[in-house]
């Protein structure tokens, strides 16, 4: 992957440092602006693959930063961060030139996944692999076959979908909300954790009979598929 630059425009120092550090660990080069004016200056002078923009900013607010960018024909994908969660606010953000919308509070893996999705979308033409491997676990998207250490594993459609999702995001933590919307298309969180049940079932099939565990739960955040 080429060297990726991300701009974070966020006035809250705690959230900003949380996002900046997380993105740096994920291999991005990150610039931070604490207000809208500075953010706009950076976004217009430097090439970024993605800009993460908070809506409530001192001075120039996030929406106006995005509008100013779009007026200058700068098409850097923008991920809006906001504490406003209503549908109308989301729609407004996207209509004014935002590319995605994430409500505060958020789990970092979700932010990361969305940033990566925006980059993928911008660099169109990237072909997603149809065969993926994590450790001795293999998945073939076309033949819908899963093997571990050469042993064939039978998965149900939803389990297969979850495994495919986890393998595409191998090594990255995937939040319950992400699984929920990816597998069922549900955007809200029913209290009983149906995600836990699905993860549990998948783990039974891919990990139970093997000494090396691949599917790990990260408490309070979600789960991750990786070789420890």
């Amino acid at each position, binding site marked *: 992957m080429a060297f990726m630059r991300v701009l974070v425009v966020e006035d809250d120092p705690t959230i900003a440092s949380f996002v900046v550090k997380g993105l740096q660990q994920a291999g991005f080069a990150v610039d931070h602006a604490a207000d809208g004016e500075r953010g706009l200056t950076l976004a217009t002078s430097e090439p970024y693959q993605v800009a993460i923009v908070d809506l409530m900013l001192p001075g120039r607010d996030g929406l106006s930063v995005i509008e100013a960018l779009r007026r200058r024909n700068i098409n850097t994908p923008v991920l809006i961060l906001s504490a406003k969660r209503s549908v109308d606010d989301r729609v407004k953000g996207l209509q004014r030139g935002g590319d995605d919308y994430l409500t505060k*509070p958020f789990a970092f893996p979700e932010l990361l996944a969305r940033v990566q999705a925006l980059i993928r979308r911008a660099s169109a033409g990237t072909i997603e692999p149809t065969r993926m491997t994590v450790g001795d676990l293999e998945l073939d998207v076309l033949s819908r076959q899963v093997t571990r250490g050469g042993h064939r594993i039978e998965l149900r459609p939803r389990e297969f979908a979850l495994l495919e999702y986890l393998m595409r995001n191998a090594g990255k933590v995937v939040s319950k909300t992400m699984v929920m919307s990816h597998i*069922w298309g549900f955007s809200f969180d*029913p209290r*009983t954790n149906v995600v836990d049940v699905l993860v549990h*079932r998948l783990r039974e099939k891919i990990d139970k009979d093997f000494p090396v565990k691949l599917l790990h739960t990260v408490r*309070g955040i979600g789960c991750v598929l990786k070789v420890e």
Partner: protein
Amino acid sequence: MARGSFLRDTLGYRLAVWYAGLFVGSSVFVIGLTYFLLSASLEQRDREIVLSSLAKYTQEYRQGGLAALNRVISADRLTLDERLLVRVLGRRAEAIFYNMPADWDEFDLRDVEAPQAPGTVSWARLRGRRSGAVMDVASFRMSDGTRLQVGKSSENRAELLVRFRTIVLLVLLSVVLVGVTGGALFTYASLQPIRDLSTAVRTILQTGRMSARVPTRNTDDALDELSVLFNTLLDRIDSLIGAMRGSLDNVAHDLRTPMTRLRSIAETALHSEQRPEALREALADCLEESERVVAMLDTLMDISEAETGTMKLHLEPVRLADLVRETVELYADLAEEKNVTVTTNVPVELSVVADRSRLRQVLANLMDNAVKYTPPGGRMGIEGHRTADGVTLSVQDTGIGIPATELPRVWERLYRGDQSRSERGLGLGLSLVRAIVQAHGGRVEVSSEPGVGSTFTVTLSSRPVK
């Protein structure tokens, strides 16, 4: 404020001027007409007196000559208070007889000495030289060429009219007075509702208290109706503000418990010397707890919005069978895990106009409960039915059931029955279900028997109220 009172004054001023103008104008017209008619009829009466006297004196003169005429006139002067000019002109217009009140000398009698055809009566009007009075003189020429003239000055009726004018002036003055004060009072009285309205609005704006109301009179006129409508509007705003303030208080209160829990986890971890793994656990607990706080906040906001009518519903036709299939799919694994059989019986043609994702939330919450509280080996069923004006959707389970004493309370926010405390949950699911269903203009009911199971039935109208 200034603008309001300016408008009011202008309107009041205009109304008062119109009222007084109309009142005074019509009075002036009526009085003027009376004056004219009176003056005309007085003139008519004078002429009749002159004519009848002329006839009488002519007859006396014919029968008894000048002497008889003289006698009659002397007698008349004593008995009648009418003063008259009586003149007899000879053939060559020389005065044979002349009788006129002394103060009438301002009239020039030569003007009525012109020749005249015999047997006719002719009228002439003489104008006084000093006063503005006039004298009408009637002449009769007899067959012998003698002319008898009788005249009467307008001084009498002028005097009467002067007196009448004084009276009329007094009357007019009082009419104007009555008109203006009446106009002012009338305007003041009829603008009272508007003033009341302004007062109420001003009170609310200045004090911020919504309790001010516009007094109404039950007169059913337009202004009274406006007052009543305005009061209704205020009532509605008042109750909305009350509800929002109430839900804000509730949210603040409800968030304190999980926040306290969050704090205590963090404090406990901070104050104890623990291994890194234990601290990790505490942090994960914090994370989960904060997730609960956010979920709770979101749900409470949803409930508040739905209850106060501010929830935005994106209404569209929703096929119930699709909705049920999607939701059952969500819980399929969970039900299988718990060995709960799920059956659905929803006719394909059933559909409602509703907010799809909100309705899915309703169904998911009901199914969530059903799966949660049904022991392994149990069953749950979802059925859809058409009713007279809509559809019902019921979620039935063979779960632990709800005791009769707890049934009415299941809709309360954060209420958790004795049996449900052991399960994870916020205690907000059913409140949200009811709030969303009611926001759609529908209703939700529960029937339950402990140990046998519960049935939740959602009734929605085909045409939502909104």
